[in-house]
C-alpha cells in the first residue's frame, strides 16, 4: 500500500498527514494549496487596497476621453466563470466517486470555460472579435491611475486564469493514464475556485463600484 502510494514522482504531495485532532485527514498537497492561496490572496488584497486608496484620493478618476468599462459584457464573463466553478466542483465530486469519464468531461469543460474567459478578456482589451477594444477607445496603460489599476488588476487575474487552464489541462491529460488522483483534482479545484472567488471581488470593486 505504501509503495504504491509513492510509485510516481510527485506522489509525496498526496501523502496523507497523520490524522490530526484539529485538521482531520488532509493531504500535504491540500494544506500546501491553502497556504499558497492565502499568500496569493494577500497579493490581490494589496492590489485592491492600492486601487481603493488611489480612487478614494483622486479628485478626477475617469478623465475626459477615457471609456467607461462595459458592465454587461463583463457580467457575462463573470457568469461564465461561475459556470466553470460549478463544472469544477462536479469534476471533484466525480473524481472522489471514481467516475473517471465524468471527471474528464467536467475537467475539460472547466478548462474551456477558462479559455472562453481569456478570449473574452482579450476581446475587452483589444477587440479581437470585431468592435474596438478598450485600448482603442482611449484606455491606455501608463496614462492614468484609472487605466493602470484596471489593466494591472485584471491582467494579474487573467494570468491566474491562464495558470488555472494549464493546470486543468495537465490534470485532464494525466487522467487518461490514470495518474490524476482524486486528491490532485481536488487541489487543482481549490485553485480554480479561488480564481473565481477573486474575480467576484474584482468585478464588484473595479467594474461596478
Amino acid at each position, binding site marked *: 500500500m505504501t509503495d504504491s502510494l509513492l510509485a510516481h514522482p510527485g506522489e509525496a504531495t498526496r501523502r496523507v498527514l497523520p490524522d490530526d485532532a484539529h485538521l482531520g485527514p488532509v493531504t500535504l498537497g491540500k494544506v500546501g494549496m491553502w497556504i499558497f492561496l492565502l499568500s496569493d490572496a494577500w497579493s490581490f488584497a494589496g492590489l485592491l487596497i492600492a486601487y481603493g486608496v488611489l480612487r478614494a484620493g483622486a479628485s478626477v478618476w475617469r478623465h475626459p476621453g477615457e471609456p467607461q468599462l462595459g458592465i454587461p459584457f463583463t457580467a457575462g464573463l463573470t457568469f461564465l466563470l461561475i459556470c466553470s466553478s*460549478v463544472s469544477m466542483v462536479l469534476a471533484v465530486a466525480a473524481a472522489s466517486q471514481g467516475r473517471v469519464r465524468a471527471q474528464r468531461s467536467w475537467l475539460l469543460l472547466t478548462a474551456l470555460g477558462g479559455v472562453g474567459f481569456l478570449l473574452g478578456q482579450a476581446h475587452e482589451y483589444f477587440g479581437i472579435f470585431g468592435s474596438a477594444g478598450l485600448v482603442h477607445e482611449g484606455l491606455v496603460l501608463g496614462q492614468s491611475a484609472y487605466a493602470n489599476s484596471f489593466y494591472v488588476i485584471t491582467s494579474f487575474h487573467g494570468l491566474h486564469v491562464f495558470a488555472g487552464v494549464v493546470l486543468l489541462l495537465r490534470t485532464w491529460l494525466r487522467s487518461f493514464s490514470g495518474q490524476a488522483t482524486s486528491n490532485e483534482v481536488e487541489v487543482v479545484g481549490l485553485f480554480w475556485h479561488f480564481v473565481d472567488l477573486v474575480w467576484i471581488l474584482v468585478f464588484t470593486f473595479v467594474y461596478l463600484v
Partner: protein
Amino acid sequence: MNDSLPSEPLPGHPSETVHRSAEQVVPASATRGYLVVFGLLAVLTVLEVAVVSPEVGVSRAPAIATLIILAISKAALVALFFMHLRSERRALRNMVLLPFLFPIVVGLAVIAESAWRRG
C-alpha cells in the same frame, strides 16, 4: 518511503490510520446543493448589476454598501460550498478565514484616510 515523513507509525496511530485515504467521497446528493449555490450566485450577480444600473437609480453610498455585502456573500458561498470549507475541520477553516480580518481592517483604514485627505 523516500520522503521526509516519519515511516514509523506515530504513537497512538496504527499505520493503517496514518495511510488511509484523506479524500472524502462527495455524496451524489451534493450535486443538488451545488446547483442551489450556482443559482444563488447567478441571482446575486444580477442584483449587483441592477444596483448600479441607472434605471434602478440607487444613490452612490448605499449602492457601494450593497455591492460590498453582495460581493462578500458571493465570495463566502464559493469558499464554503465549492471549496468545501464548510465541511472542513474548524482549525483549517479558521486558518483560512480569520486572516481575512486584517486586509479588511487595513483596507478600510487606508482607503478612508485617502478619502479624508482629499477632503
